[in-house]
């Protein structure tokens, strides 16, 4: 397959970015896509492994070697089909997925891994450019109705799959626009919203009904849903943010990241945010608490809003700096190849200007007389294993420090779905982590009510959400029809009874 010696001839290449100074001037994506010939070379680097470890890296079970080869040979149409067979939205994952597949790539043992994500994105973009991605309404309707609650990646994937199985699907979205995190969580510079809209239009054209501003359990009655639909699939995400209950938390200027980020996405779509709730980093010293992706998004957004400075704290210690693509023998023993490597990662947002600190514990916010945050106080901590072998930390004496800060953004992760509303009303059982508890077939403790995505598995990656949506849709279809022909990542494509 492909060029068997391609990996010996070509080095890894992926897109360049616009210069930082230029890209900070706008909110759009800033990638400079590789020319087709070079992309095909990148496809040629795939070694067509007997055991493609990239597969285990990918929750969707993307058949990575196959589409790499098709890309290499310029069979873009087939490549797109191959991708769509396992992934409803490759243009999203091609942009925002951290690519565990690449961490698991066999070539990554001793070379830079294959640029899988780059290839995936190009195939998907090509599909839209060529007009290949059209609505595929089902040939026959089953007459069954399914309500999907939540229109993030899990909800969208489930809706599309269920609709293709012939069911009539209605998607309920509490926000004013559909798309969930894709629409309001991820900044445009990582995923332009036109791409999200494009997909939603396709799904709509296939026959799925979207109802926005429809908050199930608030302005849509659960009982109504139960009555009107043969099955309900909850995909509302993990939206309950982790808080930081320390002195000064109530000060103005201390906000959750998810209060901050959506505003910019709305502005980018022409909305005006009322002045009393509008948040902006412009001219401020911004401190982002939490070292993950959301924090990074806050950083990129703050810099675009021309913050005076951006600083980011992380409670955990500094991970080892292993460069971009550590070789197998460089990876730590507890996260060996082909698993996701514990290492220092620097995002494009970080590159744009960010002061990063690790092992930092925020103790207190301090404000001015008007209740605006002005600074925050931290202490450095050290990590150790306690007697029971658990990781634990203690404060290091004499490390207290005060930082100037006019906007503090809390990006410390999420604690599961909000329980008020649908979950409470349906009386769903929860798992110990507060997520909706389901059986192996994605059904909750209530007959006919299913759950998928972060709401079920806890906060995770977009790629996992799509996976959950697809698999849950398969279970719903089987529940409704007794048999399903929808595909699954694990078990293959045979009918499931």
């Amino acid at each position: 397959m492909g060029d068997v010696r391609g990996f010996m001839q070509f080095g890894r290449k992926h897109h360049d970015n616009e210069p930082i100074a230029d890209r900070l001037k706008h909110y759009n994506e800033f990638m400079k896509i590789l020319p087709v010939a070079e992309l095909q070379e990148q496809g040629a680097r795939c070694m067509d492994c007997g055991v493609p470890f990239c597969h285990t890296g990918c929750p969707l079970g993307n058949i990575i070697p196959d589409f790499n080869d098709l890309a290499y040979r310029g069979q873009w149409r087939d490549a797109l089909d191959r991708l769509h067979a396992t992934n409803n939205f490759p243009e999203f994952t091609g942009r925002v997925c951290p690519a565990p597949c690449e961490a698991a790539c066999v070539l990554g043992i001793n070379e830079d891994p294959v640029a899988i994500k780059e290839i995936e994105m190009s195939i998907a973009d090509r599909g839209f450019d060529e007009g290949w991605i059209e609505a595929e309404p089902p040939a026959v309707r089953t007459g069954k109705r399914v309500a999907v609650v939540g229109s993030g990646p899990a909800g969208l994937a489930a809706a599309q799959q269920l609709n293709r199985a012939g069911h009539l699907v209605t998607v309920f979205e509490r926000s004013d626009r559909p798309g969930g995190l894709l629409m309001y969580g991820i900044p445009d510079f990582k995923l332009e919203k036109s791409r999200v809209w494009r997909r939603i239009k396709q799904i709509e054209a296939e026959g799925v009904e979207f109802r926005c501003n429809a908050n199930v359990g608030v302005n849509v009655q659960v009982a109504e849903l139960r009555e009107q639909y043969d099955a309900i699939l909850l995909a509302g995400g993990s939206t309950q943010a982790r808080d930081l209950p320390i002195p000064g938390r109530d000060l103005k200027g201390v906000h959750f990241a998810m209060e901050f980020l959506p505003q910019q996405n709305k502005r980018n779509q022409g909305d005006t945010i009322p002045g009393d709730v509008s948040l902006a980093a412009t001219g401020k010293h911004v401190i982002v608490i939490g070292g993950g992706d959301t924090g990074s998004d806050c950083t990129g957004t703050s810099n675009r809003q021309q913050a005076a400075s951006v600083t980011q704290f992380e409670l955990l210690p500094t991970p080892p700096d292993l460069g971009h693509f550590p070789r197998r023998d460089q990876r730590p023993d507890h996260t060996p190849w082909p698993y996701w490597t514990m290492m220092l990662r620097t995002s494009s947002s970080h590159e744009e200007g960010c002061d990063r600190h690790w092992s930092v514990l925020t103790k207190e916010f301090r404000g001015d007389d008007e209740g605006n945050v002005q600074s925050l106080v931290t202490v450095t901590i050290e990590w150790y294993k306690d007697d029971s072998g658990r990781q634990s930390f203690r404060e290091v004496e004499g490390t207290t420090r005060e930082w100037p800060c006019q906007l503090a953004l809390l990006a410390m992760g999420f604690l599961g779905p909000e329980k008020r509303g649908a979950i409470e009303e349906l009386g769903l059982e929860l798992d110990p982590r507060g997520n909706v508890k389901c059986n192996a077939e994605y059904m909750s403790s209530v007959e006919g009510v299913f759950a998928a995505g972060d709401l079920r598995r806890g906060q995770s990656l977009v790629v996992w959400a799509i996976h959950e949506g697809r698999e849950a849709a398969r279970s719903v279809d089987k529940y409704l029809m007794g048999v399903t022909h929808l595909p699954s990542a694990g078990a293959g494509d045979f009918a499931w009874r």
Partner: protein
Amino acid sequence: MRNAPSNPGLPARDGLYDPANERDACGVGFVVHMRGEKSHAIVRSGLEILVNLAHRGACGCDPLTGDGAGILTQIPHEFFAAVARGLGFELPAAGDYAIGTIFLPPNYEEGQFCRQQLERFIAAEGQQLLGWREVAIDNGHIGETAREVEPCIRQVLIARGKGTPREMFEWKLYVIRKQLEGVVANSGLLHRKYCYVPSLSSRIIVYKGLMLPDQVERFYGDLADERFTSALALVHQRYSTNTFPTWDLAQPFRYLAHNGEINTLRGNVNWMHARRSMLASEKYGADLKKILPVCTPEASDSAIFDNVLEMLVVTGRSLPQAMSMLIPEPWAGHESMSDEKKAYYEYQACLTEPWDGPASMAFTDGISIGAVLDRNGLRPSRYWVTKRGMVVMASEAGVLDIPPGEIESKGRLRPGRMFLVDTSQGRIIGDSEIKSGFASRRPYRQWLNENQVTLADLPLPLGEGRGEGGSVNGDSRHKSNGRADDSLRRLQRAFGYTLEDLRIIMAPMATDGYEPVGSMGNDAPLAVLSDRPQLLYNYFKQLFAQVTNPPLDAIREEIVTSLITTIGSEGNLLEETPEQCRLLRLEQPILTNAELAKIKALDRPGLKSRTLSILFPRAEGPAGMQRRMQALREEASRAMAEGVTLLILSDRGVNAESAPIPALLAASGVHHHLIREETRTRCGLIVETADAREVQHFALLTGYGAGAVNPYLAFDTLGQMQAEGYLPADVPLEKLQKNYVKAVGKGLLKVMSKMGISTQQSYRGAQIFEAIGLNSEFIDEYFTWTASRIEGVGIETIAEESLRWHESAYPRADVPRNLGLDVGGQYQWRRKGEAHMFNPEVVAKLQHATRINSVADFKKYCELIDKQERQLLTLRGLLEFKPGRPIPLGEVEEAKHIVKRFATGAMSYGSISKEAHETLAIAMNRIGGKSNTGEGGEDPARYTADPNGDRRSSAIKQVASGRFGVTSEYLVSAEELQIKMAQGAKPGEGGQLPGHKVDKEIARIRHSTPGVGLISPPPHHDIYSIEDLAQLIHDLKNANRQARVSVKLVAEVGVGTVAAGVSKGKSDVVLISGHDGGTGASPFTSIKHAGIPWELGLAETHQVLVKNNLRSRIVVQTDGQLRTPRDIAIAAMLGAEEWGIATAALVTLGCIMMRKCHLNTCPVGVATQDLELRKKFAGKPEYAVNFFFLIAEGLREIMASLGFRTVDEMVGRVDLLDTRKAIGHWKARGLDFSALLKKPEARPGVKTYCCEAQDHGIQNSLDVTTLLRACEPAIERREPVKLDLPIRNVNRTVGTILSSEITRRHGRDGLPEDTIQLNFRGTAGQSLLAFGVPGVTVRVEGDVNDYCGKGLSGGKVIVYPPRESSFKPEENIIAGNVVLYGATSGEVYLRGIAGERFCVRNSGAKAVVEGVGDHGCEYMTGGEAVILGETGRNFAAGMSGGVAYVLDEHGRFATLVNMEMVDLEDLSNADDQRAVLELVRKHVEYTGSTRGRHVLDHWPQIISKFVKVMPRDYKRALAELKKANEEAASRGVPVGELQEVANG
């Protein structure tokens, strides 16, 4: 009275033991007086031959019980006249009475019963009983085992009845005997198996029994009587693979003695059965019914062949003609056979298929006696004619001591040729005379012309496209929007096509015309264990030849193969009429759509086709398939009743409502139905199917009776693939389809040749398969007589699988659309595809655990593998331990002892990198286990230890068919010598190291040329049967007395029987490999479909060895995807005390199962020779050491829990294994392991693990008794030694121990030339100077047998006829087959002709000879051969190096050369002239050759008659080398360094 005897013969089926698997081989010989002069001396000579062939037989656990021996002579009238007088009656004239030698049950009443029955039939057939005679026997000296089941031996004397004309007498005797056999077989006698008729004839008489050759004469007192005279004597000495006492299987049979094996037996018997309703004869009338069944049920292959031969002869064909029908020459592609003869064979092929397999058959009707050799010349047969008119033929030269001066001529049987002495005519009748005799009797060519039809003769019906394949409705092209056509995709899905089928299997076939190649082993589950629906084809495993018969090389020895078949309605075997060839002749069994259309349109007398649908309604579910099968069979019968002679089974027309029956089920089901109805031979069976696409499918369809297959969907798929860019756009589709058909044909030949079968005609219906996971009800109904030993699924599940695929093609509401094809995942792991034992998680965990030596991580890894509840990937996954009586862990044998029982697999340096190979060796040496060289030789630099004490030398040195780098030094440096008979990934096949992997260093070690690909032949050319293997074991034991010898076999049904033969052949170890072992390169067909899991093979081996009382003297080792302590424990409990782990060990060193070994692109430096990639190797010996200790510690835990203190205690303890209930699994729930878990009864006090040493009999060898002592001054002090000694054929492997001692003391350079000169007179036994070293020169005045100079490593052999001989040396045979096999250096001079395969795989020796047989210089990679005379056919096949110079005086040579790899040049080059001159000069000097003298005397004129045979690649490599040398010289590098590289 004796105690009630136990029954003789083979035991009944028990556990995995099946008597049907028993095999034998032997020595055979005859002596005859040409003019028919009877004498007692002839009988004596016969007995002497027998004794001199003793080493070709074997004896079992009881040293006095042989495997059987016997003699057939003419009836000595004088002797029996006297006998009769003694009994009180007078004998009629010779010829008017018959004598039967009868074995009877020892029990009086039962014996009486048999006698009375015989008397009854004698009377009923109008013959006259003269009387009974008690045969004088002396059983005092025969073995106890033999005596226990000795029959009561009587002779019956019968006078020809008055109403019976002379020419009908033999027929009547035959009818009497057949009826007796029938009545006894169906009687309720407890000891009916004793009753057997060795002979009942008016011409010949047989004396035989379960004895050693020297016991025959003493046992049968008659034979010593001077009045016991005969003009001919046929003798046979048997070597059987078992130790069960069988008197009846001793040979000769009534018409023949056979050395070899019939590979196609199952098919032949089936066809004979099917033919019986067609037997008809006015002459024999109602008597014909009395001879049924023709074939004795459950008899040996030779006995059944004898049955059929007998039937053909007694019904009127001459013995030679009957022989030529059953064992025809390869006529189809013969370049020089007369058309008349070709027509004869072609006509006979319409009557009966060949009985295929290695065979030297000696046959006689009491008047003429002769012999025939199989088409490939795989058994040795030499003959001598004396001046007094005596002819002696035997498996070896030198079996009778005849003064040299009396010899008129010496010859050998040639492949496919016949040799006949007719005592009535008093002369030898040569092959061409015999055959032109019967070829000209009838106008066969005319008959064929007028009746036989070829596809080219048939008109194409209107409306049919002329394309090669054609398409379904012509819609295989692309739709718009760049997307593949949907309807074709659906069809593909319905028939289980996967992306892999297209990309991995079909694309290479269509592009290159070859079967695709892959690497590493198969770690996907058996079909019955797979959670996915499987094609029925996947439940069958190809059988293959190992040890008891050789596989063939269908590529290099294509001349003996043929894909031609005839289909239609066969006639009456007893007649020859023009109508009998009214058949359709196909050049090969794959039909294009157009060709099938022609057949469908056929409607003429005798050739009328009808298409029957094999679809069933989906709505009826699985039961619908069974109903349709039933209806289909009825339709078939009805069609035939209406005169249809070509049945076409078709699955065209699949749609959402109609699902297909698997084509294989339909074909075999109808085939067996018609066999049962005895109408099968009246029609041809053609399959029009979408499901056949890979070689295995076509092999199965034809193997179960289909005459031709039209794979229409495969053809359409190729069109689609081209449109989609998977196939080159610039090649016409027709060409791609043609390539595909060609690849299938080649693949079929390969599958056939694995079993040693060379013609499609005899492969058809031969059922060379074993089923795994099909229940007996299903097998008995549709695949009758196929072995299937662990039960499994039946027709319901097969239907269910078919329906699952169908449903995936036509799902409800078309959901989902555009899914494309299934990913498959058989060949490469895919998340959505088939499960594999080595998935990413497993590889990652194993590597991590062994790198950091973590018990915890290793346990996680083991859990992943052993966690079989959810995924049953292996048979052992279904086993579990019964609760034992636990002991403290501390009481279990220590890990450091256990690890010594581990070996790594045979991976050659060449297939894997130097780094990987040496790391593994170091690791194994550190723990005291054994690594294996593989078949690529070993760098002598590795024989010295590293400064840190590490040793890089592999303990096991493998000896494979290629014999690369197998020198005396290599052998002497081994702890174990492993004979690789087969390899799990490609049993029955040779290997190939592609040229791009042969770098300078590998070429040096393999004694070959850089950049030139290397071929390992499928068979060892010195092992065509079990007694040959015993000989090689003996040779290797001679080459290194301190090493243990091991034989590597691959699991298949009957492997236990072979292993018993191996144990009898004195091997110290037998390795049973699973089918799933790794490979550096194999066809996928072989990786996936040949061989069976080791669990079955090992259990069978252990059971059969214990049953035969052979277990305690052989170590049993097993390998094949072993990975965890649990695997090892189960292996031990099933019977293995040692274990091999290769793939997993390689994984610890970094292998990540890329499966790219064959492409040289391994990205982790394990299986590549690329310099850059090799740098990436990151393995350390510690990782492998950790691995083996982690396994051993895990094993100890299991041992403690079960209560075993030592591994020895654990061996064979199946009683502590249980079957896990697989109730939940939709397929595996039908499995039944009771045969696998059967514990064989050992005799009291006998151990069931290896605890005794084999007796190799080395102490009696000439080397030990004489040579070592006499040569001591040379060995110790390098002083010259010269000896004059007699030599006989029983002196085997002479000079080999001597050579090994020289190597031990003096290294590979040995001693100065001619330091030791051994001058022999007589006939040397096999393997003269095998692995002989520099300084040893052997002269033989006389002749030599097979394998002379095998593995020669610098020694010199000179052979010339005795001075007294009067024949012309250059016209007579002086050396046997396979001279200089695998020689690496040294010289051989033969004044005379050598047999087949002269210089096969020679890589450095020089030789001069005066003529050779077929396949000369085959696979040669180096050295020089000068042939001063004629050669046989297929010269230089697979010859990739070295040079041959052939004196071609008659200008015929060019037609005899296989030109695939060589060019023919003249001798204009001065260097060549010098080379030839020098060798011929030496030849004349050493042998006194007049032929050589003539060449020297006429040199200038004769130069032009020489042809130089030059391998093309070799020439290129030499040119490159020369250039490199010149460049090096200009840089000042010593030339010697580079020269060494080219020592090929």
